[in-house]
């Protein structure tokens, strides 16, 4: 960590915000940024007129209740193994969560590779990979399907819950939240999409879009660039994530996504249906599609009563403005997914804020 670079970025932010004068809202799209901003104590050091808004970049948080209930239902079949990323096990469904069910056929995996290994090692079970995440993890699901094909595995499936960040950003600016003055863009998603992907947002909505990684120096540099753009009233795409993020992104990963998935209008918790905001597995690979294999009609479910995760995800309220926060909804007994996920705004607020 370069302390001089950090100090310099802090000064730039102070000076730019003093010049701006009015309150400005910067949305940190990505859940990992939300956590990092708290964990490094950056929030406590920012000028008062710079407000950070947590965005919908937490894959667990934006997965709709219907998907969660579907996974919980499938988990109770004896002919399946559920392979899931860790956070999903604690998300409450209508009646319970995977964690509380404590079923032996639910396995936490670190990667889609692990899910394919499960399929190889358990030929008598159908593996259902809980495939959530944005563009960072979508290519890995595609690769998993290719591996399964190569290994001749008939028992590997994915329940596709993948989503796309850009349509969500567009939906937020198109009426859901008029307090967003700029975006701190997600680092890992941008490695795949490329910084150039944000050009249409800047052009149409006149908002700075700056990509940053997750170290404290990166985040402060990213915020400094945003504040300077706002102070100058000149908006552009920029990146402080060095060589990791190219304007064109990772074409190979993009091709993998294109080959295996097609766009669809899926439900996002908190944002409703977003045109082309979700992905589904192409018909060509239907044999890997858990939704088709099990004839699942995913019905959007109602959010838990009183839960305002949706508004938190849109940056419309801060978690402590939800009546359930810290009372009925806590880290130990979460009501909504924003409290469950390690990248959820409510969990971060609860863990790190007084």
């Amino acid at each position, binding site marked *: *960590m370069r302390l001089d670079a950090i100090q310099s970025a802090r000064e730039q932010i102070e000076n730019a915000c003093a010049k701006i004068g009015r309150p400005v809202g910067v949305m940190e799209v990505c859940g990992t940024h939300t956590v990092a901003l708290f964990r490094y*104590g950056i929030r406590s050091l920012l000028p008062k007129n710079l407000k950070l808004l947590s965005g919908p970049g937490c894959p667990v948080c934006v997965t709709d209740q219907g998907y969660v209930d579907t996974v919980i239902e499938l988990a109770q079949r004896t002919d399946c193994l559920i392979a899931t990323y860790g*956070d999903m096990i604690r998300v409450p469904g209508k009646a319970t969560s995977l964690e509380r069910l404590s079923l032996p056929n639910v396995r936490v995996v*670190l990667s889609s590779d692990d899910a394919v290994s499960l399929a190889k090692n358990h030929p008598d079970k159908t593996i259902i990979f809980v495939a959530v995440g944005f563009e960072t993890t979508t290519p890995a699901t595609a690769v998993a399907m290719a591996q399964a094909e190569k290994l001749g595995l008939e028992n590997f499936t994915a329940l596709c819950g993948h989503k796309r960040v850009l349509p969500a950003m567009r939906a937020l600016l198109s009426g859901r939240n008029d307090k967003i003055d700029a975006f701190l863009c997600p680092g890992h998603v941008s490695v795949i999409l490329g910084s150039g992907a944000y050009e249409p947002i800047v052009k149409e909505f006149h908002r700075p879009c700056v990509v940053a990684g997750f170290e*404290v120096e990166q985040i402060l540099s990213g915020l400094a660039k945003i504040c300077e753009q706002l102070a100058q009233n000149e908006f552009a795409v920029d990146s402080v994530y060095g060589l990791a993020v190219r304007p064109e992104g990772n074409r190979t990963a993009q091709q993998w996504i294109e080959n295996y998935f097609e766009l669809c209008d899926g439900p996002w918790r908190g944002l409703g249906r977003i045109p082309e905001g979700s992905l589904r597995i192409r018909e060509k690979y239907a044999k890997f599609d858990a939704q088709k294999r099990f004839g699942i009609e995913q019905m959007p479910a109602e959010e838990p009563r009183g839960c305002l995760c949706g508004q938190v995800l849109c940056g419309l309220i801060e978690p402590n403005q939800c009546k359930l926060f810290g009372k009925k909804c806590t880290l130990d007994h979460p009501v909504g997914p924003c409290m469950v996920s390690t*990248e959820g705004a409510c969990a971060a607020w609860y863990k790190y804020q007084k």
Partner: protein
Amino acid sequence: MTEQNDKILLAHGGGGRLMAELIAKTIGPAVYGKMPQVLADAAGVNIDGREILFTTDSFVVKPLFFPGGDIGRLSICGTVNDLAVCGAKPIVMSLALIIEEGFAVSDLEKILHSIGKTVKEADVAIVTGDTKVVEKGAADGIFINTAGIGIPKKGIALGFDRIEPGDVILINGTIGDHGMTVMSQRQELTIQSPLQSDCACLHKIIGLLLDQLGPKVKFMRDPTRGGIAAVTNEIVQSCGCGVELWEENLPVNPAVKAAADILGFDMLNIANEGKFIAVVSADAEQKALDILRNHPLGKKAARIGTVGPKQPHSLVELVTSIGGRRIVQMPYGIELPRIC
């Protein structure tokens, strides 16, 4: 009252909030009747006028063998350390083995050899034991329980009630080594610098500290499951004083930090097995650090924080490396790796 559909979760064994809740609401009332005000790492018992300290611990680590140790070594160090942080010299131990049918005898021999070696290191005797075998699938290889009896050092009084505003919080070395070593073995993470558990018996280094500083050492605990976050939150909850930790001062092995970053874990929540936290009077800080740093198990000893004033709703706060502040909560119980 227990809800009928409540089940024990993995997090109940994590050393964090859920475990504390289970003990306070379910185990404690059944076992103790009236819950003791404080649950220490070892219990003081008076037998015919002679004060002894008694402790027990069970070991279910996975994998059984890891760089820097194994379940056998851990089973001795864990119990020795629980006695040591309560100011007791460990004297005798029991050893109970629960072995899964089909477990390789060669692995059992390795574990027992490790136990024998560590027992010598700890200068303690195993005087009684038990062996059970359960059918395949009913245990994960082998589970071990050890219990230990120790004699408290004279003139030493350690406890939450001795902690005062202005006291300093010390640790004898790098944090998170054991927990991240075990996690990275489970996840088959290949890190360039190999990780190694810090599993070690702390009775000698602690003995030196107590012999030379006496009552200036006010409280000690080994930050095993739940890590530093759990211990400092226990301090705040039990004595009502706030705690301020300084991220800059936390000794960390860069490879351990890298592994934690990859998996998205907070270093403060990660288990340690060869470390102890000591709360000492401010005027004893430098001498304490000198004593620790002169011992092989304390070369990277550091002051990591201070005890603040008593106030309602006291918290553990971390001053981050860039001068920001954030709260350190009692961990939930299990760390879940992040998705992306």
